[in-house]
């Protein structure tokens, strides 16, 4: 009975296409076609770099189409994976040098691929300026993410805030599953040491971000 029904569906769809009544493919077929495209349509100077296109479990969950919402179970899984991903610097010190952090926050370069070449740098830029307002007098800042102006003034620099700030930069999805904010530490875009400098830039009272 069930088999017969399935047969009907298959023949039915074929007949509809033949009659000019083509229609949207189902999600599984769409996924299969699109993933095949992704696997064929990109080039990189080294095969290992093509792996950047592969999705990890969290990215796959966080790729909701249109208005589709995360289920509670999915959100919980993303948070769990994010928490497990967080690593701390070998020194154990979560607050680095705010001046280095300032430079990093304004550095949008590193690790891009163009003309068959990888943009090789010792370390990547922190990308903050692209999306966040930073020091009060800065004009050339984005607004995809919330303003970070006065971050330390507002939140202080208690041990708990230090840890929270570090973790949010390392993997924002531990607190906001599937947020737009990249998981900068977890994806290895930044090193734990770089993140400590950004923590200092956000929290240090002397940092330009906390100037009134």
């Amino acid at each position, binding site marked *: 009975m069930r088999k017969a029904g399935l047969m009907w569906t298959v023949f039915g769809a074929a007949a509809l296409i033949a009659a000019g009544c083509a229609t949207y493919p189902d999600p599984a077929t769409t996924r299969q076609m699109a993933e095949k495209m992704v696997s064929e349509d990109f080039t990189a100077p080294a095969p290992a770099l093509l792996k950047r296109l592969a999705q990890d479990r969290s990215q796959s969950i966080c790729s909701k189409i249109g208005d589709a919402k995360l289920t509670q179970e999915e959100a919980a899984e993303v948070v769990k994976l994010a928490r497990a991903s967080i690593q701390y610097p070998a020194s154990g010190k979560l607050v680095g040098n705010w001046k280095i952090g300032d430079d990093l926050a304004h550095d*949008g*370069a590193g690790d891009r691929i163009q003309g068959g070449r990888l943009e090789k740098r010792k370390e990547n830029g922190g990308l903050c*300026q692209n999306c966040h307002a930073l020091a009060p007098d800065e*004009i*050339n800042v984005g607004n995809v993410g919330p303003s970070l102006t006065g971050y330390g003034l507002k939140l202080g620099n208690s041990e708990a805030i230090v840890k929270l700030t570090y973790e949010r930069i390392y993997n924002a999805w531990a607190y906001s599953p599937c947020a737009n904010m990249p998981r900068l530490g977890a994806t290895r875009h930044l090193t734990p040491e770089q993140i400590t400098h950004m923590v200092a830039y956000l929290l240090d009272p002397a940092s330009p971000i906390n100037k009134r």
Partner: protein
Amino acid sequence: MNIARRTFLKLTGGAGALAAAFAAGLVAGGQAWAATWNKAGFESKALADVMKSLGAASAAESKDIAITAPDIAENGAVVPVAVTSKLPNTQQISIVVEKNPFPLAATFDIAGGSEGYVSARIKMGQTSDVWAVVKADGKYYTARKEVKITVGGCG
């Protein structure tokens, strides 16, 4: 390589002929502009020297000159600047970018049939005052406006 140039090469039979054609043009065209091009002004590195070269060292500020330019330019390589002079008998308009390595960007000599208005696009290395220096009825006047430059960084 543009098409026009490629076609021309074919017609004249090679780069040698092209160079010869240019050389011929250079002599005629070159002399025509060389007589008027304000070499001293364009090679000046300081605002005061530019003003001197224009004969505008003692120019007065005027409210009859309007500079239209963005408060913030997204791309310092292409900053639109328009100057409108309501001063009677406007004869010349210059655009000067104070903090450029060579501040004098352009000078426009206006003959009788043209209004006291010019619009152009200029390069700016950094945030700077942009000056309009206007010669009207034999006297010099100025106006200025600050244009902030944000360098695009990546992309």
